[in-house]
């Protein structure tokens, strides 16, 4: 049984950095990158726990997350590009028209 505590600690740090990034940054690209950081922090935790339990379920789940993240990047970047083209800015605070 390996000690996975350092991995979990790292994962938590990464996740916290990611979520702080999402909450504080205005630029959509940076927000997006922060989201990716959070996803990868989760992946790290999944893999670490899989290693601890000695089965492959967590690793398989990490693959799924990667695939979904890739798909999400495609859609998300496309949306950010479109927003940037129409309003010459990638600030998430500017794109608040839907509240009306």
């Amino acid at each position, binding site marked *: 049984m390996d000690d996975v505590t350092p991995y979990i600690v790292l994962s938590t740090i990464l996740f916290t950095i990611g*979520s702080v990034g*999402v*909450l*504080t940054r*205005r630029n959509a690209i940076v*927000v997006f990158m922060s989201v990716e950081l959070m996803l990868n922090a989760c992946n790290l935790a999944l893999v670490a726990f899989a290693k601890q339990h000695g089965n492959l379920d967590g690793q398989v789940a990490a693959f799924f997350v990667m695939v979904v993240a890739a798909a999400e990047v495609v859609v998300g970047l496309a949306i950010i590009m479109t927003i940037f083209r129409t309003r010459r800015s990638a600030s*998430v*605070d500017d*794109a*608040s*028209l*839907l*509240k*009306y």
Partner: protein
Amino acid sequence: MFLLSEGGASIPVVDPLGADGVFSLLWLVIALPLAGATILLLGGRRTDAWGHWLGTLTAVGSFVLSLVLFVSMLGREEGQRQVVQHLYDWIRVGDLTVSIDLLLDPLSVLFLLLITGVGSLIHVYSIGYMEHDPRRRRFFAYLNLFVAAMLMLVLSENYLGLFLGWEGVGLASYLLIGFWQHKPSAAAAAKKAFVVNRVGDIGLSLGIALFFVTFGSTSFTVISANASGASDGVLTALGLLLLLAACGKSAQVPLQSWLLDAMEGPTPVSALIHAATMVTAGVYLVVRSNFVFELAPHAQTAVVVVATVTLLWGAVIGCAKDDIKKALAGSTMSQIGYMMLAAGLGVYGYAFAIFHLITHGFFKANMFLGAGSVMHGMNDDVDMRRYGALRKAMPVTFLTFAMGYLAIIGFPGFSGFWSKDKIIETALIESPVAGIGALIGAGVTGFYMTRLMLMTFFGEKRWKDDVHPHESPSVMTGPLVVLAALSVLGGLLYLGHWIVDWLSPVVGTAPKHEPPVPAIVITLLVLAVVAAGVATAWLLVGKRPVPVTAPQDVSFATRAARADLYGDTINETLVINPGRHATAGLTRGDRSLVDGLFTGSAGVTAALGAQLRKVQNGFVRSYALSVVGGVVLVLAALLVVNL
């Protein structure tokens, strides 16, 4: 206290036979004028050219049919003179079955003759009177509608059918009073008549409901057979409700105020509706409901009180009016008071009430039409102060009017003498206080009618030079002559007590009451009082020149009488203003309380929404923060639970 003895009189029960033979045509009496009204109203301008002839024809046809029915009824034995014709079931709901049944009996047949007879004459007269009115066809349609409704009123065998006619009469009178609707005063008068009549209608509709609750039926046959089984309180309530209804329709105090204003209508309307027929509906109702009133002595006392007050009230108003039609209207109110008084005296007076009703129908229609004829010749001026010396300019109108005048003051031999004398005599025996009131009323009648005669037909001419009084065309004077003849000869109905015997199957036979003094003494007393009234009028009006403008420095009594004895002021203070204040108060309460509750709750919701909306600020980051916060909260909760 009034002495209203119940005596030993038995109350007759309505127990009609089925209609056969000529009586099966009874429905046509109503259907003819109704068809006339329908054709004229729906036909529109196409019927303008001959509409008045059709209207007159249906009325005359109805009269001829009534005459045939009357003659066939004369040929029957006394016990077989009540005939009912079942037309159809109108309402059938649960226990309530109301059918349209027509009841022809000695009472309703007399009304039939009066309504259709006088009605036909007034139709004929109107052909001339309304000749230059562009809406003459419509006028005849309304007249026909009125006749049909009045016939329905007197022919119905149950109270609901009577109510149908009652409302129809109210509608027709509204339409006819306001016929010259371009005059605001006429429109207001029509509205006033309608509203005041509605007050009386409340009494009738509540009475009908009470009849149904008590007897399970509104039919005269059922009610008259079971009336004695009802409790005293119910019968008194019924009597008072019917009295309220009668007050509305017959312009009795306190619902009298509409009658004087109703003179805004064309004169034939005043003659037909407000003298000869419609205002008599209340008297008819009381006489017809004798099976209720005979068992409710308190209600009878109320009728006597109302009638005595009204007959003096109307007479006093008649004394001070310079408008010829309003003077006559005051006199109508007073004469209806006499009829109500007789009807309130119970079995002793019912027949005399109907007797006076018929003779009054003759002479009052005669005088109203005569007044119309005078106005026709005087460019529609109604102020008697600008008349004078018209007897030479309008000999026929003068002579016929004089017959009506002699009849109303009760000149010996004329119709009014017989009918009014009997009422005063009966009243003096049965209820001395009311009798003395009626006696005084007779004197006042002599005064105001003489004043009217003197101001209109005698004295110096007071009209302006551009007025050229002329006799009316023969289509107008013809009905006047007929009505004048009837005013003279109407007393023949009492020949050999005919009308009393004729009506006894309906209203009962009065036990013989010996007057304390011989009847001839009472008659002489009445004549003396009337003569005093006439002499006073001669001294005050006939011997002195009449000022063309009404003098203003007059006594309080004259001012009060000119203002209809402040009837409108009383209504305003007691009913209209409190009603207005109550309405204003209720509106205020509605606005502040009811509306406040609704707008308040809506406001609270809106304010809550405005606060909640601030959460939805559109910033993705703040949404993300709530998501994170939520996750942290859930995790914390899980930790707390698990530890």
